[in-house]
């Protein structure tokens, strides 16, 4: 029986590969560390002058810091989740590596997700010092339950974005250059998920579309757990809808990958 690569193995080997590669671009690596330290020091300086009572008086809520650090972690993973796999496959297409990769016996969906996860780990490590200091700062206003549920809503929101990332990656296989398609959907996701505009003020048809974007409930729940805002629906219902949407999107993404890979194979994979 031949050996088979597991998604977990692909994931940790991709982490290993990414870190080796990162350290080989020495100047960039040094600046990544410096930037990471800079953000952590910035957060530390902020903590010295941080006065939660003043924040409460001026901003209206002392949970603001918690929201900022959660928001930044979400931002940190968002780009990778949406765009990481697509650029990876684009690289493989242009070097011809995709030919070798796609003769290997693993699920394409798992390969893409494992690689996105590996990139997210890389992003997180540089973000971690600042996150920890920020967390220490928000400690007074954030309960353990709030922290865990906030993190869960971020991770699930990122997981939802990963499914979109997988779809973009599959589109790359088929259509090679998908930057414009990405921008189009990225705009829709950002506008209709309540990231910037509260859903409640949008017209009903747009609200319906908004509620079918899985990130919407993730954002709403994140705000609820970190800033104490009211959710649009009951949190239990939002969690249920959120997880169902995520599962459904996962199935759709998996189907699209296999469908578009099949289509791409009609003319060959590596002609980028």
């Amino acid at each position, binding site marked *: 029986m*031949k*050996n*088979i*690569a*597991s998604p977990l*193995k*692909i994931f940790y*080997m*991709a982490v*290993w*590969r990414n870190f*080796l*590669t990162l350290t*080989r*671009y020495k100047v960039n690596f040094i600046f990544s560390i410096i930037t990471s330290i800079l953000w952590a020091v910035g957060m530390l300086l902020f903590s010295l002058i941080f006065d939660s009572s003043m924040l409460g008086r001026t901003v209206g809520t002392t949970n603001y810091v918690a929201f900022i650090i959660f928001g930044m972690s979400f931002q940190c993973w968002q780009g990778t989740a949406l765009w990481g796999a697509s650029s990876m496959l684009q690289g*493989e297409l242009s*070097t*011809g*590596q995709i*030919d*070798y*990769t*796609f*003769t*290997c*016996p*693993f699920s394409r969906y798992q390969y893409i997700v494992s690689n996105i996860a590996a990139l997210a780990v890389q992003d997180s490590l540089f973000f971690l010092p600042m996150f920890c200091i920020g967390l220490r700062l928000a400690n007074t206003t954030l309960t353990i339950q709030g922290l865990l549920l906030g993190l869960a809503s971020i991770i699930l929101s990122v997981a939802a974005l990963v499914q979109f990332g997988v779809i973009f990656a599959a589109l790359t296989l088929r259509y090679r250059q998908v930057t414009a398609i990405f921008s189009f959907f990225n705009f829709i996701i950002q506008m209709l998920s309540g990231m910037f505009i509260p859903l409640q003020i949008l017209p009903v048809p747009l609200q319906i579309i908004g509620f079918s974007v899985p990130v919407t409930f993730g954002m709403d729940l994140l705000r609820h757990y970190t800033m104490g805002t009211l959710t649009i629906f009951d949190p239990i219902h939002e969690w249920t809808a959120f997880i169902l949407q995520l599962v459904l999107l996962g199935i759709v993404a998996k189907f699209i990958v296999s469908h578009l890979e*099949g289509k791409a*194979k*009609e*003319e*060959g*994979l*590596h002609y980028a």
Partner: protein
Amino acid sequence: MEEIVCNKIFKDYKGKGVVRALDSIDLRVLKGEFFGLLGPNGAGKTTLVRILATLLKASGGCAWVGGYDINKDEKKVRRIIGYAGQDSERSAYFRLSVRENLFYFAHALRGVPKDIARERIKYMASAIGFENKLDRLFISLSGGEKQVVIIMRAILHNPEVCFLDEPSKSLDPVTARRVRRFLKDYARENDITVCLTTHNMLEVEEVCDRIAFINYGKLIFVGTPIEFRRRAAMREIIEISTDKLGDDLKRKILKAYGVLNVVCQKNVTKLYCEDAFSTFPEVLNIMKEMGLKAPVRIAEPSLEDAFAFFANGGKSDEEYC
């Protein structure tokens, strides 16, 4: 036992018009065989290899690799194959070393256990004379060296069937020979069936047990390299190692028994005959009479002659020109 079976495989590329790249290919490759796919540029060799390696969909027909249907059991086919594509010298991670690259591909993507992967990398590198390059970054290698890494990657997981698309294209003659010999030995020891496309006739001569010739997407010939040459040898050849025959001598030779044509090339004159062995003594006598001293031999058409014969639609190169 048959390891690769193609049954009426055809492939159409659709663009502005339909281009038929493969036309009803029937092919059988036996287990453990070193099989060469020959043909002019654009004949359809790469297309066939890519279809068998599950990278391209055939427009019709069916094929089995290792007993698995390439359309229905793609994943099972992928478990047992290795692949090195054409022009794939860039297809590894530039900022990883050769050792790291090979380890990543073998362990992460092929699931070879860590220790075995490490040992095999060491073994293969020493067999090819690549040990001192294992810790160099992939980007720092020359094109040919990169190609060696790509070939190693294709067999590192000991596949049952290995597809190599013009593996020696960018290798220098010494490295090419070393890699060829290693591949041949390694494939024999591990019972690997190798299917390679090539334009290198020396490679065919040295390693291929059987070959197939494809032209305009059609399978023209399947057999051993010797059969390939013989099939192409419509006429037998006597070679005189000089091109200074003179008109008289040329005329006399043309009148000799069974000589059909005399073609002078650079430093060699080729006499095309019906039966070279019967004509040979008479040619020697004529040369003696006319005082011509030059080495004479009965020549078999080379693989290159045979290639040209098949590529030109069954005409020898001279006639074709």
